[in-house]
């Protein structure tokens, strides 16, 4: 029982280990010492208080998109649209941040709310399409990604054009930024920002919703078995829409932490990669909120350490991404790991009997 509950954790850890081993082999192939490579990789992510701050800042958006995908998945929905939801959240927040001239304590809640609404709307539409017309959410959310992409491409140059560049917005003011002086100082000038607290708070709230509330109970029931949810008197369509809205809001919030925290403006022509990495975060984190938190921070270390590794050795920074990709690959094919664990379990059981 207990060992079964911890199963996803083992699968994740073994995936990570296999990914690291594979990455080490690649480093050796490029003529480098893997041990040295890894020391620099982790040093790059954790060596100083500033670097830890940067790692957390890198992880912030990933935590939220990972949470968004995991939450949707737990309720039976596959949210491929985290990227577009994040972009729309970022656009709405940036738009208000640039347009309103208010003191920080007033403006921050407003821009955050805007991000949540923007992302939520981008989840609402696929949710409605699924509930009303049975359009598969994978198709609808991918479509919404591109609509967000083109909306930003149009809106930013038209209304929020930067001083020098057509391709990005003006920088937001201090009052709309999630960076705060005490936190920046605390982490020795890192670009860590209030987003990390929002992310952790979201993790806790979503974990509570999923595990303790009537709402979570019903959303998960719909995800597992629509027919029995309907039989039990639950409103299946409302729950599908609600799940997508919540998932979208979380990604929207990720947008705020990224464009108003990690960065200070929004660019056109990119769908943020965090949206897609969120799928990996959810997968490796076994769709549990805390799993997503741990995974996102781990990915944050790899992301922010790879530059340092590259500077100190001749290992290309792409190795960092490759390691992530390999880990995801192992997590996705976790069936093999499951079989391996079954064998071990049977072996231990057999040994105990004798």
């Amino acid at each position, binding site marked *: 029982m207990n060992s079964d509950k911890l199963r996803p954790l083992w699968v994740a850890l073994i995936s990570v280990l296999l990914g690291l081993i594979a990455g080490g082999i690649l480093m050796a192939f490029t003529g480098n010492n893997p041990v040295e490579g890894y020391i620099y990789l982790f040093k790059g992510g954790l060596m100083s208080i500033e670097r830890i701050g940067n790692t957390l800042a890198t992880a912030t958006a990933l935590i939220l998109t990972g949470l968004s995908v995991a939450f949707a998945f737990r309720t039976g929905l596959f949210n491929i649209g985290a990227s577009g939801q994040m972009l729309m959240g970022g656009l709405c927040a940036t738009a208000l941040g640039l347009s309103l001239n208010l003191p920080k304590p007033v403006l921050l809640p407003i821009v955050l709310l805007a991000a949540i609404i923007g992302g939520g709307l981008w989840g609402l539409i696929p949710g409605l399409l699924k509930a009303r017309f049975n359009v598969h959410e994978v198709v609808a959310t991918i479509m919404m990604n591109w609509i967000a992409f083109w909306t930003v491409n149009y809106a930013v140059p038209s209304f929020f054009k930067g001083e020098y560049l057509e391709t990005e917005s003006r920088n937001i003011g201090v009052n709309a930024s999630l960076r705060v002086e005490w936190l920046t100082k605390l982490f020795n000038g890192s670009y860590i920002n209030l987003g990390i607290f929002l992310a952790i708070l979201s993790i806790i709230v979503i974990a509570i919703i999923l595990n*303790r509330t*009537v709402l979570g109970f019903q959303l998960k029931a719909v995800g597992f078995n629509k027919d*029995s949810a309907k039989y039990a008197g639950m409103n299946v369509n409302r729950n599908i829409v609600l799940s997508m809205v919540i998932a979208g809001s979380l990604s929207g919030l990720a947008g705020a932490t990224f464009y108003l925290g990690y960065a200070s403006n929004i660019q056109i022509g990119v769908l943020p990669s965090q949206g897609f990495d969120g799928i990996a975060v959810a997968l490796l984190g076994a769709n549990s909120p805390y799993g997503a938190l741990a995974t996102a921070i781990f990915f944050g270390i790899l992301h922010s350490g790879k530059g340092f590794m590259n500077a100190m050795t001749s290992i290309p920074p792409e190795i960092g991404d490759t390691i992530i990709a390999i880990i995801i690959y192992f997590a996705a094919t976790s069936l093999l790991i499951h079989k391996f664990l079954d064998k071990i379990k*049977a072996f231990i059981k057999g040994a105990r009997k004798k």
Partner: protein
Amino acid sequence: MDYVIEMVNIRKEFPGIVANDDISINLRKGEVLALLGENGAGKSTLMSILFGLYTPDRGLIKVNGSVVNITNPNDASDLGIGMVHQHFKLVHNFTITENIILGMEPKGIKIDLTDARERIVELSKKYNLNVDPDAKIENVSVGMQQRVEILKMLYRNAEILIFDEPTAVLTPQEILELMKIMRNLIDEGKSIILITHKLKEIKQVADRCTVIRRGKVIDTVDVKTSSLEIMAEKMVGRKVTFSVEKGDGIPGNEILEISNLNVYNNRKVLGVKDFSLKIRSGEIVGIAGVDGNGQTELIEAITGLRDIHSGSIILNGQDISRLSIKERSNRGISHIPEDRHKHGLVLDYSLEENLILEQVESKKFSKNGFINKISMRDHANKIISDFDVRSGMGPLTIVRSMSGGNQQKAIVGREIFQNPDLLIAVQPTRGLDVGSIEYIHKRLVEQRDSGKAVLLVSLELDEILDLSDRIAVINSGELIGVVDGDKTNENEIGLMMAGISKGDKN
């Protein structure tokens, strides 16, 4: 004596429970061996081991005298062992031929089905299976689907055939056919292991019967020389009464009144036609009919799972025909559904979660949107002990891992515990052992005696006749007539089920 199968000292443990505790069984060539045992006794587990779905913790399996190692269903298949699962494993938009050859398609770029089709026709003829090789699964009856599963085994040259509760999903007519098919199979030299809870069927086709209780073999008896009572007693461990003890009911107010109801079925034609029926408190009204004559549509219309076309459904004086499922449940309807896996349960939820599925929003189980885990646990423990729901981890058991019969007992307990005005029970004892059937019947009568209205739908005429105060017979969606339960018999009901009118229309 030649044994085709010997399972020796098999042990299989699941978390919290020993499903098979040193079980030994053997199967002779050309016989039908019945496995009889309470719900959760470990029958399906044992057969899953033989078929390679589980590996035993201990023990060995011999086929034709030599020890074999079966680690997956392909091994079993190679050894000539085939299994028909309780839930069929067919692809619905494939034809029967395609389904049968699935997994062993002829090699080559273009799959040539003519040879396969020919062989299927041949086999079908030889064993009187009567299947149309070109029909799609979605268009054929449950009975035919089962025959497809049988053909699938035969096509793979199975010599040993395992049937896990094959008759639970069949109509009485289909059961008779299946019994004939089994005898044909035996005549052709096959050997069969049959799991069933229906003692009559064991009497009809089996040669020997191995009785299992709580994971242990109690005895193996010769069917010819043992009475039903003795087999039942060995299985349950106490005497079982086969008749339902029931005094006269005292019908009171009208609880449900259905008038001129018309409901469309999935094929977009009227499945229920101009149907009217009244049910009073303190009575059990049974709906008798051949499967597929509108029972499902009628029940779905009453519970709100299906929209009605016209007519009215009055519960306690108020029209509920346009209300949501939730509303109807709040006003006192509870429903033991026909298909426990599709409707009754969230298989990936724990038992305690399933037991509050419909009531999670109520004050009893939640406050300010938070689930009250203590009262959820209490509720589960009450139902578990009251209805003897057996499982490995009690309230925390994931329902998917429970035995079929115990899943059913959990649902029945949940619905009765809702204390409804109208209890709709569709096939309430499907898949239950005789001891549990006796108990559930008692509880249904008790519901009646405490002034509830009970609407019972069952394909088993015995169950309808034993329990019902009044019997409404349905044919092609129309009410043929209503007769008093104690003034009728199997023959009369049978005629009415065939559409011959009798009794008064209310």
